[in-house]
């Protein structure tokens, strides 16, 4: 080496510490290739001392548990309300990540399915009525008595039967509503806990709703709807605690 030549050390293998626990182990065993984690390409060699073996065992346990999954909590990216602080800067883990479906995701999916199903049935009913006059009346056709200003009477909207359970709607609101009940013949007590809109609509659920069987006729009672935005709301009809049908209400 000449006197004026600068000494040059080789580039370091790493520039930050390899913690002896989780990061090191994940680099070896759990980080997927191409994950962007530089430690993934550098398997960590564990020292063979008792403490390191214990630490390695602990890492193995937690990584196994994490890989197995817990399937809890609310789906990432779902509609939010409540105590979320506006303007906060959320870390990466707070945005969507793929994973096993949680209960929340199932609820959202079912709500979406109800909505889609209601729209499809609406279109189908329109076609059926157009080609089969007098038939396809299992659903309540919007008539003058059911529009805004309907008197609060169970007989306000007579339902037709088409081989299925008859049903009647009692509206205790001035709001026009399109109502659809999908229910097999049942005899026991019915209940409906609420009708929800898709999460994207950010609408409050309709809770002032009830259903009962009277003289073989399902009577759906809808209360105040003035505060609810237009949209489709759907919910399960329960018989002895089990879902046996659906109730859909569309507000325009």
């Amino acid at each position: 080496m000449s006197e004026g030549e600068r000494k040059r050390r080789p580039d370091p293998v790493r520039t930050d510490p390899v913690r002896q626990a989780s990061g090191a182990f994940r680099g070896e065993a759990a980080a997927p290739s191409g994950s962007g984690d530089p430690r993934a390409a550098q398997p960590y060699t564990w020292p063979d001392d008792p403490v390191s073996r214990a630490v390695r065992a602990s890492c193995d346990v937690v990584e196994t548990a994490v890989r197995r999954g817990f399937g809890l909590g609310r789906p990432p990216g779902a509609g939010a309300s409540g105590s979320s602080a506006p303007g906060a800067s959320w870390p990466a883990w707070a945005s969507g990540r793929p994973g096993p479906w949680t209960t929340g995701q199932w609820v959202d999916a079912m709500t979406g399915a109800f909505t889609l199903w209601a729209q499809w049935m609406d279109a189908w009913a329109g076609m059926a009525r157009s080609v089969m006059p007098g038939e396809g009346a299992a659903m309540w056709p919007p008539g003058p008595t059911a529009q805004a200003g309907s008197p609060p009477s169970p007989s306000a909207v007579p339902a037709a039967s088409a081989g299925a359970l008859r049903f009647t709607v009692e509206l205790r609101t001035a709001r026009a509503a399109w109502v659809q009940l999908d229910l097999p013949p049942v005899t026991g007590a019915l209940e409906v806990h609420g009708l929800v809109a898709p999460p994207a609509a950010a609408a409050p659920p309709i809770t002032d709703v009830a259903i009962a069987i009277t003289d073989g006729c399902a009577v759906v009672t809808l209360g105040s709807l003035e505060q609810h935005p237009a949209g489709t709301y759907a919910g399960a009809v329960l018989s002895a605690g089990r879902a046996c049908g659906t109730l859909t209400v569309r507000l325009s």
Partner: protein
Amino acid sequence: MTPPAVVSEVLRDYGAVVRDAVRAYLPPAEPRRYLYDLVADYPGRGGKMMRPSLCIAVARALGAPLDPLLIAAAASIELMHNAMLIHDDIEDESDRRRGEPTLHSLWGNAMAINAGDALAMTSLRPLLDVAAHTDPLLALGILEETEHMARESAEGQALELGWRADNVVALEERDYFEMVLKKTCWLATIHPVRLGALIAVAGRVDPTAFVRFGFFLGAAFQIQYDVLNLAGDTEVYGKETAGDLREGKRTLMIIRLLQLATADERVRLVAHLGTPMAARTGREVGWIRDRIDHYGCIDYARQVAHAMAGAALEEYARLFAPVPPSRDRAFLEGLITWVVERTS
């Protein structure tokens, strides 16, 4: 290393908030003498309030206000913790809790179990009270988390009780950590952290990200707890010294001793562990304590606890680096040191 003062300050401040909330759910109702006085006993003895403070601090560090939902979640955690303590003390046949006789020592197993049941059910009340004012899916998520935590805790307790019942001694560190993950970490750290995050971001969170932080923090906490049982000051620690040896618990130190003991020592140790608790002698407990010192098992456990704290610190940095500095963030960081340096 001394834990930063912010840890004790936050534990004091949030502890006071949670104690008030807990007290509201423990009214002096009848039958007081046979139930509600017993239900209120452990919560009234104090406690460090680490679990509810952890929940609140995580939520607030992420920007959540200290609103009724957050306080209800924290109170629920503390009530459930106390309920489990009652049952744990019966299962472990422990004599002392928080410096006083255990509930079953005072009232008998039957009444203590009943009080524990009532307290466990009471722990759901704060969550149900706020559910009507909360996003239904978030409320459901919180209840799901609570149910899952209780199940994990029961599974962990079952592992430990089963090992003692069958005198299982072929145990390794991995077995110990699996038991600790379930028995201790879910209730002590993972659940509070996940619940705080879930509330702060109204459910838009991958709670799995918090499991590692909670696990390493909880494992450090449990190992230090086991060390204090052998080497702590009885008055400060609040439980009987070497009670774990008398109860035959499979702590990290016992597992290490089983690995290092000579053949004869191992036979004697296994015989002690297989003896019914009432028949275990103080002489044998003293001999095991001596062997633990001889083989440096306490130092070993302390080193593992510090390594767990180091891992928790890394997970903390990974999770909270994007979060603005705050008193709550400083508490979370300081808590990692606190769990391995505490004396009670």
